[in-house]
Protein backbone atom coordinates (compact mmCIF):
# COMPACT_ATOMS: atom_id res chain seq x y z
CA UNK A 1 0.00 0.00 0.00
CA UNK A 2 1.26 3.43 -0.82
CA UNK A 3 1.75 6.01 1.82
CA UNK A 4 -0.14 9.18 1.43
CA UNK A 5 1.80 12.21 0.28
CA UNK A 6 -0.81 14.78 1.05
CA UNK A 7 -0.82 16.18 4.50
CA UNK A 8 -3.98 15.68 6.42
CA UNK A 9 -4.62 19.15 7.73
CA UNK A 10 -6.52 18.19 10.83
CA UNK A 11 -5.95 15.47 13.30
CA UNK A 12 -8.48 12.84 12.36
CA UNK A 13 -8.80 10.44 15.20
CA UNK A 14 -11.44 8.30 13.56
CA UNK A 15 -9.46 7.78 10.40
CA UNK A 16 -7.32 4.72 10.62
CA UNK A 17 -4.79 5.57 7.97
CA UNK A 18 -4.82 4.44 4.39
CA UNK A 19 -5.15 0.84 3.53
CA UNK A 20 -3.63 -1.01 6.41
CA UNK A 21 -6.50 -1.57 8.77
CA UNK A 22 -6.23 -0.03 12.11
CA UNK A 23 -2.57 -0.37 12.86
CA UNK A 24 -0.71 1.81 15.19
CA UNK A 25 -3.53 4.13 16.10
CA UNK A 26 -4.26 2.72 19.47
CA UNK A 27 -7.34 1.03 18.10
CA UNK A 28 -8.56 -2.36 19.02
CA UNK A 29 -6.82 -4.83 16.69
CA UNK A 30 -10.20 -6.20 15.66
CA UNK A 31 -11.49 -2.86 14.36
CA UNK A 32 -11.61 -2.61 10.59
CA UNK A 33 -10.36 0.59 8.99
CA UNK A 34 -13.69 1.87 7.75
CA UNK A 35 -15.47 1.78 11.10
CA UNK A 36 -15.19 4.42 13.81
CA UNK A 37 -15.51 2.17 16.80
CA UNK A 38 -16.28 -1.36 17.90
CA UNK A 39 -19.93 -0.63 18.52
CA UNK A 40 -20.47 0.56 14.96
CA UNK A 41 -18.67 -2.52 13.74
CA UNK A 42 -20.72 -4.84 15.91
CA UNK A 43 -24.00 -3.18 14.94
CA UNK A 44 -23.13 -3.60 11.29
CA UNK A 45 -22.33 -7.25 11.83
CA UNK A 46 -25.56 -7.87 13.75
CA UNK A 47 -27.76 -6.07 11.21
CA UNK A 48 -25.95 -7.71 8.32
CA UNK A 49 -26.40 -11.13 9.84
CA UNK A 50 -30.08 -10.57 10.50
CA UNK A 51 -30.62 -9.27 6.98
CA UNK A 52 -28.89 -12.42 5.78
CA UNK A 53 -31.18 -14.53 7.94
CA UNK A 54 -34.21 -12.69 6.54
CA UNK A 55 -32.91 -13.73 3.14
CA UNK A 56 -32.63 -17.31 4.43
CA UNK A 57 -36.22 -17.20 5.64
CA UNK A 58 -37.34 -16.39 2.11
CA UNK A 59 -35.00 -18.99 0.64
CA UNK A 60 -36.59 -21.73 2.74
CA UNK A 61 -39.89 -19.92 2.20
CA UNK A 62 -39.83 -20.95 -1.46
CA UNK A 63 -39.67 -24.59 -0.38
CA UNK A 64 -42.33 -24.11 2.27
CA UNK A 65 -44.81 -22.60 -0.17
CA UNK A 66 -44.31 -25.51 -2.56
CA UNK A 67 -44.87 -27.86 0.36
CA UNK A 68 -48.01 -26.04 1.52
CA UNK A 69 -49.52 -25.95 -1.97
CA UNK A 70 -49.05 -29.65 -2.60
CA UNK A 71 -50.06 -30.65 0.86
CA UNK A 72 -53.24 -28.72 0.28
CA UNK A 73 -53.77 -30.41 -3.10
CA UNK A 74 -52.94 -33.95 -1.96
CA UNK A 75 -53.57 -34.13 1.80
CA UNK A 76 -54.11 -37.89 1.99
CA UNK A 77 -51.04 -38.84 0.01
CA UNK A 78 -48.92 -36.47 2.05
CA UNK A 79 -50.18 -37.72 5.38
CA UNK A 80 -49.65 -41.36 4.48
CA UNK A 81 -46.31 -40.73 2.84
CA UNK A 82 -45.12 -38.96 5.97
CA UNK A 83 -45.68 -42.19 7.85
CA UNK A 84 -42.99 -43.83 5.77
CA UNK A 85 -40.45 -41.60 7.48
CA UNK A 86 -38.68 -42.63 10.63
CA UNK A 87 -40.21 -40.58 13.43
CA UNK A 88 -37.91 -41.78 16.25
CA UNK A 89 -34.86 -40.78 14.22
CA UNK A 90 -36.47 -37.46 13.36
CA UNK A 91 -37.29 -36.81 17.00
CA UNK A 92 -33.78 -37.78 18.06
CA UNK A 93 -32.35 -35.37 15.55
CA UNK A 94 -34.62 -32.62 16.84
CA UNK A 95 -33.27 -33.18 20.33
CA UNK A 96 -29.69 -33.28 19.02
CA UNK A 97 -30.14 -29.97 17.23
CA UNK A 98 -31.76 -28.33 20.25
CA UNK A 99 -28.85 -29.50 22.35
CA UNK A 100 -26.43 -28.05 19.82
CA UNK A 101 -28.30 -24.77 20.03
CA UNK A 102 -27.75 -24.75 23.77
CA UNK A 103 -24.02 -25.43 23.44
CA UNK A 104 -23.82 -22.76 20.75
CA UNK A 105 -25.52 -20.24 23.02
CA UNK A 106 -23.09 -21.22 25.78
CA UNK A 107 -20.13 -20.79 23.45
CA UNK A 108 -21.29 -17.28 22.61
CA UNK A 109 -21.74 -16.66 26.32
CA UNK A 110 -18.16 -17.84 26.73
CA UNK A 111 -17.25 -15.10 24.28
CA UNK A 112 -19.15 -12.52 26.28
CA UNK A 113 -17.51 -13.55 29.54
CA UNK A 114 -14.14 -14.00 27.89
CA UNK A 115 -13.78 -17.60 28.96
CA UNK A 116 -11.65 -19.32 26.34
CA UNK A 117 -12.12 -22.86 27.75
CA UNK A 118 -15.91 -22.44 27.63
CA UNK A 119 -15.71 -21.27 24.04
CA UNK A 120 -13.54 -24.20 22.99
CA UNK A 121 -15.49 -26.90 24.79
CA UNK A 122 -18.87 -25.60 23.73
CA UNK A 123 -17.81 -25.14 20.12
CA UNK A 124 -16.52 -28.69 20.04
CA UNK A 125 -19.79 -29.90 21.53
CA UNK A 126 -21.72 -27.93 18.91
CA UNK A 127 -19.66 -29.43 16.11
CA UNK A 128 -20.14 -32.89 17.60
CA UNK A 129 -23.92 -32.47 17.82
CA UNK A 130 -24.00 -31.09 14.30
CA UNK A 131 -22.09 -34.06 12.97
CA UNK A 132 -24.32 -36.42 14.93
CA UNK A 133 -27.30 -34.86 13.23
CA UNK A 134 -25.72 -35.34 9.83
CA UNK A 135 -24.78 -38.95 10.56
CA UNK A 136 -28.33 -39.75 11.64
CA UNK A 137 -29.57 -37.99 8.53
CA UNK A 138 -27.22 -40.10 6.45
CA UNK A 139 -28.69 -43.29 7.89
CA UNK A 140 -32.19 -42.02 7.24
CA UNK A 141 -31.34 -41.22 3.63
CA UNK A 142 -29.65 -44.61 3.21
CA UNK A 143 -32.75 -46.32 4.52
CA UNK A 144 -34.95 -44.44 2.06
CA UNK A 145 -32.67 -45.48 -0.78
CA UNK A 146 -32.85 -49.09 0.33
CA UNK A 147 -36.61 -48.98 0.60
CA UNK A 148 -36.99 -47.39 -2.85
CA UNK A 149 -38.54 -44.30 -1.41
CA UNK A 150 -36.34 -41.94 -3.36
CA UNK A 151 -38.22 -40.31 -6.24
CA UNK A 152 -37.04 -41.93 -9.42
CA UNK A 153 -37.88 -44.83 -11.70
CA UNK A 154 -38.04 -47.40 -8.89
CA UNK A 155 -40.00 -45.23 -6.51
CA UNK A 156 -42.23 -47.32 -4.21
CA UNK A 157 -41.41 -50.45 -6.15
CA UNK A 158 -40.74 -52.40 -2.96
CA UNK A 159 -44.09 -53.60 -1.59
CA UNK A 160 -42.53 -54.35 1.80
CA UNK A 161 -41.88 -50.67 2.30
CA UNK A 162 -45.03 -48.96 1.21
CA UNK A 163 -47.95 -48.66 3.52
CA UNK A 164 -51.25 -50.46 2.75
CA UNK A 165 -52.68 -47.11 1.78
CA UNK A 166 -50.51 -46.85 -1.30
CA UNK A 167 -51.05 -50.48 -2.23
CA UNK A 168 -54.75 -49.73 -2.20
CA UNK A 169 -54.36 -46.35 -3.87
CA UNK A 170 -51.70 -46.67 -6.54
CA UNK A 171 -52.95 -43.46 -8.13
CA UNK A 172 -51.69 -41.55 -5.11
CA UNK A 173 -48.13 -42.76 -5.62
CA UNK A 174 -47.18 -39.83 -7.90
CA UNK A 175 -48.31 -37.48 -5.14
CA UNK A 176 -46.25 -39.39 -2.62
CA UNK A 177 -43.40 -38.92 -5.04
CA UNK A 178 -43.92 -35.17 -4.82
CA UNK A 179 -43.90 -35.50 -1.04
CA UNK A 180 -40.62 -37.37 -1.10
CA UNK A 181 -39.11 -34.97 -3.58
CA UNK A 182 -39.96 -32.13 -1.22
CA UNK A 183 -38.72 -34.17 1.72
CA UNK A 184 -35.33 -34.57 0.09
CA UNK A 185 -35.25 -30.99 -1.19
CA UNK A 186 -36.12 -29.47 2.20
CA UNK A 187 -34.02 -31.69 4.40
CA UNK A 188 -31.27 -31.65 1.78
CA UNK A 189 -31.08 -27.86 1.68
CA UNK A 190 -31.22 -27.92 5.47
CA UNK A 191 -28.42 -30.47 5.66
CA UNK A 192 -26.36 -28.34 3.29
CA UNK A 193 -26.81 -25.48 5.72
CA UNK A 194 -25.69 -27.78 8.54
CA UNK A 195 -22.56 -28.68 6.59
CA UNK A 196 -21.76 -25.02 6.02
CA UNK A 197 -22.46 -24.43 9.71
CA UNK A 198 -20.12 -27.20 10.78
CA UNK A 199 -17.37 -25.75 8.57
CA UNK A 200 -18.05 -22.33 10.01
CA UNK A 201 -17.79 -23.71 13.53
CA UNK A 202 -14.48 -25.39 12.77
CA UNK A 203 -13.12 -22.06 11.56
CA UNK A 204 -14.51 -20.24 14.58
CA UNK A 205 -12.98 -22.91 16.79
CA UNK A 206 -9.52 -22.25 15.31
CA UNK A 207 -9.98 -18.52 15.87
CA UNK A 208 -11.17 -19.13 19.41
CA UNK A 209 -8.09 -21.23 20.00
CA UNK A 210 -5.95 -18.24 19.07
CA UNK A 211 -7.80 -16.34 21.75
CA UNK A 212 -9.39 -13.92 19.31
CA UNK A 213 -12.70 -13.66 21.10
CA UNK A 214 -12.80 -11.28 24.00
CA UNK A 215 -15.82 -9.73 25.69
CA UNK A 216 -15.59 -6.45 23.79
CA UNK A 217 -15.00 -8.10 20.43
CA UNK A 218 -16.31 -11.50 19.49
CA UNK A 219 -18.60 -10.61 16.58
CA UNK A 220 -17.61 -13.56 14.42
CA UNK A 221 -18.44 -16.02 17.16
CA UNK A 222 -21.76 -14.33 17.83
CA UNK A 223 -22.76 -14.13 14.16
CA UNK A 224 -21.91 -17.77 13.55
CA UNK A 225 -24.10 -18.53 16.52
CA UNK A 226 -27.04 -16.67 14.97
CA UNK A 227 -26.62 -18.70 11.81
CA UNK A 228 -26.50 -21.95 13.76
CA UNK A 229 -29.64 -21.13 15.71
CA UNK A 230 -31.44 -20.22 12.52
CA UNK A 231 -30.66 -23.61 10.99
CA UNK A 232 -32.02 -25.15 14.18
CA UNK A 233 -35.25 -23.16 13.84
CA UNK A 234 -35.76 -24.41 10.31
CA UNK A 235 -35.61 -27.95 11.64
CA UNK A 236 -38.04 -27.07 14.42
CA UNK A 237 -40.59 -26.51 11.64
CA UNK A 238 -39.47 -29.27 9.32
CA UNK A 239 -39.86 -31.97 11.94
CA UNK A 240 -43.60 -31.66 12.63
CA UNK A 241 -44.42 -30.59 9.08
CA UNK A 242 -42.71 -33.50 7.39
CA UNK A 243 -42.56 -36.34 9.89
CA UNK A 244 -45.70 -35.99 11.98
CA UNK A 245 -48.37 -35.19 9.41
CA UNK A 246 -50.16 -38.51 9.46
CA UNK A 247 -48.69 -39.91 12.64
CA UNK A 248 -52.12 -40.45 14.15
CA UNK A 249 -53.13 -42.75 11.27
CA UNK A 250 -50.86 -45.31 12.83
CA UNK A 251 -49.68 -46.91 9.59
CA UNK A 252 -46.17 -45.72 10.19
CA UNK A 253 -42.98 -47.65 10.12
CA UNK A 254 -40.27 -47.61 12.74
Amino acid at each position, binding site marked *: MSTSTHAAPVAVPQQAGHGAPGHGHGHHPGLAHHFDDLEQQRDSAVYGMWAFLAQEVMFFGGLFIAYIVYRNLYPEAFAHASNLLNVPLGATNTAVLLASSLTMALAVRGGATGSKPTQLIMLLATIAFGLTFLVVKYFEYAEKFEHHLVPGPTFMSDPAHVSPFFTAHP*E*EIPHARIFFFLYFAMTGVHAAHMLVGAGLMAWIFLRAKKGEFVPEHHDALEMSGLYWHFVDIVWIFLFPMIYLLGYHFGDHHG
Partner: protein
Amino acid sequence: MLQELPLTPPSASTFAPQVDALYWFLVILSTVVTVGIFCAALFLSIRYRRKPGVAPGNIEGSLKLELLWSFIPGVLAIGIFAWGAKVYFYAAKPPKDVMDFYVSGKQWMWKVQHPTGQKEINDLHIPVGRAIRFTMTSEDVLHSYWVPAFRLKKDTVPGRYTEMWFQATKPGKYHIQCAEYCGTKHSGMIGECYVLEPEEYQRWLSGNTGEAPEVAGQKLFENLRCVTCHMAGQGQRGPELTGVYGTKVQLEGGGEVVMNDEYIRESVLKPLAKVVKGFQPVMNTYEGQVGEEEIMQLVAYIKSLKAQGGVKQ
Protein backbone atom coordinates in the same frame (compact mmCIF):
# COMPACT_ATOMS: atom_id res chain seq x y z
CA MET B 1 -53.33 5.43 -44.87
CA LEU B 2 -55.50 4.10 -42.11
CA GLN B 3 -56.56 1.21 -44.29
CA GLU B 4 -52.96 0.31 -44.79
CA LEU B 5 -52.14 0.72 -41.15
CA PRO B 6 -55.11 -0.21 -39.02
CA LEU B 7 -54.72 0.50 -35.31
CA THR B 8 -56.83 -2.36 -34.07
CA PRO B 9 -57.59 -5.85 -35.28
CA PRO B 10 -61.08 -6.50 -36.64
CA SER B 11 -63.72 -6.52 -33.95
CA ALA B 12 -65.64 -9.75 -34.30
CA SER B 13 -67.04 -10.83 -30.96
CA THR B 14 -69.44 -9.49 -28.38
CA PHE B 15 -66.43 -9.11 -26.11
CA ALA B 16 -64.29 -7.08 -28.52
CA PRO B 17 -66.18 -3.76 -28.30
CA GLN B 18 -65.94 -3.85 -24.50
CA VAL B 19 -62.18 -4.26 -24.65
CA ASP B 20 -61.88 -1.60 -27.33
CA ALA B 21 -63.95 0.87 -25.33
CA LEU B 22 -61.69 0.51 -22.32
CA TYR B 23 -58.64 0.62 -24.57
CA TRP B 24 -59.59 3.86 -26.29
CA PHE B 25 -60.59 5.42 -22.99
CA LEU B 26 -57.15 4.62 -21.64
CA VAL B 27 -55.44 5.80 -24.81
CA ILE B 28 -57.10 9.18 -24.48
CA LEU B 29 -56.55 9.41 -20.73
CA SER B 30 -52.91 8.46 -20.95
CA THR B 31 -52.26 10.78 -23.86
CA VAL B 32 -53.67 13.66 -21.86
CA VAL B 33 -51.67 12.71 -18.77
CA THR B 34 -48.41 12.03 -20.58
CA VAL B 35 -48.48 15.03 -22.86
CA GLY B 36 -49.73 17.24 -20.03
CA ILE B 37 -47.02 16.34 -17.55
CA PHE B 38 -44.26 16.27 -20.13
CA CYS B 39 -45.22 19.67 -21.47
CA ALA B 40 -45.50 21.05 -17.96
CA ALA B 41 -41.98 19.84 -17.19
CA LEU B 42 -40.66 21.22 -20.44
CA PHE B 43 -42.43 24.55 -19.93
CA LEU B 44 -41.16 24.92 -16.36
CA SER B 45 -37.61 24.02 -17.41
CA ILE B 46 -37.63 26.70 -20.07
CA ARG B 47 -39.49 29.30 -18.07
CA TYR B 48 -37.10 28.88 -15.14
CA ARG B 49 -33.94 28.26 -17.12
CA ARG B 50 -30.75 29.42 -15.49
CA LYS B 51 -30.20 33.16 -15.71
CA PRO B 52 -27.27 34.99 -14.20
CA GLY B 53 -28.13 36.73 -10.97
CA VAL B 54 -31.36 34.86 -10.45
CA ALA B 55 -31.32 32.53 -7.49
CA PRO B 56 -33.60 29.52 -7.26
CA GLY B 57 -36.66 29.71 -5.06
CA ASN B 58 -36.97 27.86 -1.80
CA ILE B 59 -40.06 25.71 -1.55
CA GLU B 60 -40.43 22.85 0.90
CA GLY B 61 -43.50 21.24 -0.56
CA SER B 62 -47.19 21.33 0.02
CA LEU B 63 -49.24 18.78 1.86
CA LYS B 64 -52.37 19.91 0.05
CA LEU B 65 -50.82 19.30 -3.33
CA GLU B 66 -49.41 15.94 -2.26
CA LEU B 67 -52.81 14.78 -1.11
CA LEU B 68 -54.41 16.09 -4.26
CA TRP B 69 -52.03 14.32 -6.60
CA SER B 70 -52.21 11.13 -4.61
CA PHE B 71 -55.97 11.20 -4.49
CA ILE B 72 -56.69 11.90 -8.15
CA PRO B 73 -54.46 9.16 -9.58
CA GLY B 74 -55.80 6.87 -6.87
CA VAL B 75 -59.39 7.42 -7.89
CA LEU B 76 -58.57 7.09 -11.57
CA ALA B 77 -56.63 3.91 -10.88
CA ILE B 78 -59.47 2.33 -8.94
CA GLY B 79 -61.85 3.34 -11.72
CA ILE B 80 -59.63 1.63 -14.29
CA PHE B 81 -59.46 -1.44 -12.08
CA ALA B 82 -63.24 -1.58 -11.72
CA TRP B 83 -63.84 -1.20 -15.43
CA GLY B 84 -61.19 -3.80 -16.20
CA ALA B 85 -62.69 -6.22 -13.69
CA LYS B 86 -66.16 -5.75 -15.16
CA VAL B 87 -64.89 -6.58 -18.63
CA TYR B 88 -62.96 -9.53 -17.26
CA PHE B 89 -65.94 -11.05 -15.52
CA TYR B 90 -68.01 -10.76 -18.68
CA ALA B 91 -65.43 -13.07 -20.25
CA ALA B 92 -65.26 -15.31 -17.21
CA LYS B 93 -68.98 -16.14 -16.97
CA PRO B 94 -70.40 -17.98 -19.97
CA PRO B 95 -74.16 -17.73 -20.62
CA LYS B 96 -76.38 -20.78 -20.09
CA ASP B 97 -76.92 -21.82 -23.67
CA VAL B 98 -73.52 -22.56 -25.16
CA MET B 99 -72.08 -24.85 -27.80
CA ASP B 100 -69.31 -26.88 -26.21
CA PHE B 101 -66.08 -27.14 -28.11
CA TYR B 102 -63.10 -29.05 -26.82
CA VAL B 103 -59.65 -27.73 -27.50
CA SER B 104 -56.35 -29.34 -26.84
CA GLY B 105 -52.97 -27.72 -27.43
CA LYS B 106 -50.01 -29.79 -28.45
CA GLN B 107 -46.58 -28.74 -29.72
CA TRP B 108 -47.33 -27.14 -32.22
CA MET B 109 -50.95 -27.49 -33.18
CA TRP B 110 -54.44 -26.80 -31.95
CA LYS B 111 -56.84 -29.73 -31.93
CA VAL B 112 -60.48 -28.76 -31.85
CA GLN B 113 -63.53 -30.95 -31.52
CA HIS B 114 -66.97 -29.64 -32.45
CA PRO B 115 -70.14 -30.43 -30.49
CA THR B 116 -71.17 -32.51 -33.47
CA GLY B 117 -67.93 -34.42 -33.57
CA GLN B 118 -66.05 -32.82 -36.44
CA LYS B 119 -62.39 -32.43 -35.66
CA GLU B 120 -60.08 -29.78 -36.93
CA ILE B 121 -56.41 -29.10 -36.54
CA ASN B 122 -55.29 -25.47 -36.18
CA ASP B 123 -58.25 -23.96 -38.04
CA LEU B 124 -61.63 -23.36 -36.51
CA HIS B 125 -65.05 -23.08 -38.12
CA ILE B 126 -67.81 -21.59 -36.01
CA PRO B 127 -71.25 -20.17 -36.61
CA VAL B 128 -71.85 -16.48 -36.14
CA GLY B 129 -74.13 -15.36 -33.31
CA ARG B 130 -73.85 -18.45 -31.14
CA ALA B 131 -72.23 -18.49 -27.73
CA ILE B 132 -69.38 -20.95 -27.81
CA ARG B 133 -67.53 -22.37 -24.87
CA PHE B 134 -64.07 -23.84 -25.12
CA THR B 135 -62.98 -26.42 -22.60
CA MET B 136 -59.25 -26.50 -23.04
CA THR B 137 -56.25 -28.42 -21.95
CA SER B 138 -52.77 -29.15 -23.17
CA GLU B 139 -51.02 -32.39 -23.91
CA ASP B 140 -47.53 -31.12 -23.19
CA VAL B 141 -46.48 -27.60 -22.26
CA LEU B 142 -48.33 -24.35 -21.61
CA HIS B 143 -49.98 -22.83 -24.65
CA SER B 144 -52.39 -19.95 -24.99
CA TYR B 145 -55.29 -19.78 -27.40
CA TRP B 146 -55.60 -16.28 -28.77
CA VAL B 147 -57.97 -14.83 -31.33
CA PRO B 148 -57.10 -11.13 -31.53
CA ALA B 149 -60.30 -10.36 -33.43
CA PHE B 150 -62.26 -11.66 -30.44
CA ARG B 151 -59.81 -9.98 -27.99
CA LEU B 152 -59.77 -13.28 -26.16
CA LYS B 153 -57.02 -15.46 -24.92
CA LYS B 154 -56.59 -18.19 -22.35
CA ASP B 155 -53.70 -20.42 -21.41
CA THR B 156 -54.05 -24.13 -21.82
CA VAL B 157 -52.48 -25.94 -18.91
CA PRO B 158 -51.43 -29.59 -18.94
CA GLY B 159 -53.13 -31.59 -16.22
CA ARG B 160 -56.19 -29.42 -15.88
CA TYR B 161 -58.96 -27.64 -17.78
CA THR B 162 -59.35 -23.97 -18.47
CA GLU B 163 -62.39 -22.35 -20.03
CA MET B 164 -63.10 -19.55 -22.42
CA TRP B 165 -66.30 -18.45 -24.11
CA PHE B 166 -67.22 -16.03 -26.86
CA GLN B 167 -69.86 -15.16 -29.36
CA ALA B 168 -68.71 -14.18 -32.83
CA THR B 169 -70.53 -11.25 -34.35
CA LYS B 170 -69.07 -10.88 -37.82
CA PRO B 171 -68.51 -13.53 -40.47
CA GLY B 172 -64.94 -13.55 -41.71
CA LYS B 173 -61.52 -15.07 -41.37
CA TYR B 174 -59.41 -14.25 -38.32
CA HIS B 175 -56.04 -15.26 -36.96
CA ILE B 176 -55.62 -17.83 -34.23
CA GLN B 177 -52.25 -17.72 -32.49
CA CYS B 178 -50.49 -19.36 -29.61
CA ALA B 179 -49.55 -16.58 -27.22
CA GLU B 180 -47.70 -18.53 -24.53
CA TYR B 181 -44.20 -19.42 -25.62
CA CYS B 182 -44.15 -23.18 -26.18
CA GLY B 183 -40.94 -24.11 -27.93
CA THR B 184 -39.23 -24.12 -31.29
CA LYS B 185 -42.23 -23.69 -33.58
CA HIS B 186 -44.21 -21.47 -31.25
CA SER B 187 -44.71 -18.95 -34.05
CA GLY B 188 -46.02 -21.72 -36.28
CA MET B 189 -48.76 -22.72 -33.86
CA ILE B 190 -51.27 -20.62 -35.73
CA GLY B 191 -54.47 -21.14 -37.63
CA GLU B 192 -57.43 -19.32 -39.06
CA CYS B 193 -60.79 -18.91 -37.47
CA TYR B 194 -63.65 -18.96 -40.00
CA VAL B 195 -66.78 -17.36 -38.69
CA LEU B 196 -69.62 -18.61 -40.90
CA GLU B 197 -73.29 -17.84 -41.34
CA PRO B 198 -75.33 -20.57 -39.59
CA GLU B 199 -76.37 -22.25 -42.83
CA GLU B 200 -72.80 -22.12 -44.12
CA TYR B 201 -71.67 -23.67 -40.88
CA GLN B 202 -74.20 -26.46 -41.36
CA ARG B 203 -72.87 -27.00 -44.86
CA TRP B 204 -69.34 -27.14 -43.52
CA LEU B 205 -70.37 -29.59 -40.87
CA SER B 206 -71.99 -31.93 -43.36
CA GLY B 207 -68.89 -31.85 -45.50
CA ASN B 208 -66.82 -32.87 -42.53
CA THR B 209 -68.47 -35.82 -41.00
CA GLY B 210 -67.47 -36.92 -37.60
CA GLU B 211 -68.94 -38.39 -34.56
CA ALA B 212 -70.45 -36.12 -32.02
CA PRO B 213 -68.22 -36.26 -28.96
CA GLU B 214 -70.99 -37.67 -26.86
CA VAL B 215 -71.51 -40.42 -29.43
CA ALA B 216 -67.81 -41.17 -29.51
CA GLY B 217 -67.88 -40.96 -25.74
CA GLN B 218 -70.69 -43.45 -25.58
CA LYS B 219 -68.74 -45.91 -27.73
CA LEU B 220 -65.70 -45.45 -25.51
CA PHE B 221 -67.90 -45.90 -22.47
CA GLU B 222 -68.90 -49.26 -23.84
CA ASN B 223 -65.54 -50.31 -25.22
CA LEU B 224 -63.75 -49.50 -22.00
CA ARG B 225 -66.41 -51.52 -20.16
CA CYS B 226 -67.32 -48.55 -17.99
CA VAL B 227 -70.84 -49.63 -18.60
CA THR B 228 -70.51 -52.84 -16.59
CA CYS B 229 -70.05 -51.04 -13.31
CA HIS B 230 -71.81 -47.75 -13.88
CA MET B 231 -75.33 -49.03 -14.39
CA ALA B 232 -78.14 -49.75 -12.05
CA GLY B 233 -78.94 -53.29 -11.08
CA GLN B 234 -76.80 -56.30 -10.46
CA GLY B 235 -73.13 -55.79 -10.90
CA GLN B 236 -73.35 -52.09 -10.19
CA ARG B 237 -70.17 -51.17 -8.43
CA GLY B 238 -69.93 -47.52 -9.27
CA PRO B 239 -72.32 -44.59 -9.06
CA GLU B 240 -74.88 -44.13 -11.78
CA LEU B 241 -74.01 -41.26 -14.02
CA THR B 242 -77.36 -40.24 -15.38
CA GLY B 243 -78.48 -36.75 -14.58
CA VAL B 244 -75.72 -36.17 -12.10
CA TYR B 245 -73.61 -33.81 -14.17
CA GLY B 246 -73.48 -30.42 -12.51
CA THR B 247 -74.88 -31.69 -9.24
CA LYS B 248 -73.10 -32.09 -5.94
CA VAL B 249 -72.23 -35.60 -4.90
CA GLN B 250 -71.40 -36.79 -1.41
CA LEU B 251 -68.01 -38.40 -0.92
CA GLU B 252 -66.90 -41.38 1.04
CA GLY B 253 -65.27 -40.10 4.21
CA GLY B 254 -67.20 -36.86 4.21
CA GLY B 255 -67.17 -33.84 1.98
CA GLU B 256 -68.79 -33.24 -1.34
CA VAL B 257 -67.72 -32.34 -4.81
CA VAL B 258 -69.41 -30.83 -7.81
CA MET B 259 -69.67 -33.33 -10.63
CA ASN B 260 -67.94 -31.32 -13.34
CA ASP B 261 -65.44 -31.82 -16.15
CA GLU B 262 -62.53 -31.63 -13.77
CA TYR B 263 -64.00 -34.25 -11.41
CA ILE B 264 -64.86 -36.63 -14.24
CA ARG B 265 -61.36 -36.27 -15.62
CA GLU B 266 -59.88 -36.93 -12.22
CA SER B 267 -62.14 -39.95 -11.68
CA VAL B 268 -61.07 -41.50 -14.96
CA LEU B 269 -57.38 -40.97 -14.30
CA LYS B 270 -57.34 -41.25 -10.51
CA PRO B 271 -60.53 -43.07 -9.62
CA LEU B 272 -59.76 -43.43 -5.95
CA ALA B 273 -58.98 -39.82 -5.25
CA LYS B 274 -62.60 -38.93 -4.47
CA VAL B 275 -64.90 -41.89 -4.10
CA VAL B 276 -68.65 -41.32 -4.10
CA LYS B 277 -70.35 -42.17 -0.85
CA GLY B 278 -71.61 -45.70 -0.63
CA PHE B 279 -69.16 -47.22 -3.09
CA GLN B 280 -66.00 -49.24 -2.66
CA PRO B 281 -62.72 -47.88 -3.97
CA VAL B 282 -62.37 -50.55 -6.60
CA MET B 283 -62.14 -48.75 -9.92
CA ASN B 284 -58.92 -49.05 -11.92
CA THR B 285 -57.20 -46.07 -13.36
CA TYR B 286 -57.48 -45.41 -17.07
CA GLU B 287 -54.36 -43.32 -17.11
CA GLY B 288 -52.36 -44.20 -20.21
CA GLN B 289 -55.35 -45.90 -21.86
CA VAL B 290 -57.23 -42.75 -22.76
CA GLY B 291 -55.84 -39.50 -24.13
CA GLU B 292 -57.01 -35.99 -23.42
CA GLU B 293 -59.34 -36.01 -26.43
CA GLU B 294 -60.96 -39.24 -25.36
CA ILE B 295 -61.46 -38.02 -21.84
CA MET B 296 -63.20 -35.00 -23.28
CA GLN B 297 -65.47 -37.34 -25.24
CA LEU B 298 -66.30 -39.26 -22.08
CA VAL B 299 -67.05 -35.99 -20.36
CA ALA B 300 -69.31 -34.96 -23.22
CA TYR B 301 -71.14 -38.28 -23.02
CA ILE B 302 -71.71 -38.04 -19.28
CA LYS B 303 -72.85 -34.46 -19.74
CA SER B 304 -75.38 -35.65 -22.31
CA LEU B 305 -76.95 -38.17 -19.95
CA LYS B 306 -80.07 -36.29 -19.02
CA ALA B 307 -82.36 -37.70 -16.40
CA GLN B 308 -84.70 -39.53 -18.76
CA GLY B 309 -82.20 -41.52 -20.85
CA GLY B 310 -80.01 -43.38 -18.45
CA VAL B 311 -77.03 -45.49 -19.28
CA LYS B 312 -77.86 -47.69 -22.20
CA GLN B 313 -77.44 -51.30 -21.38
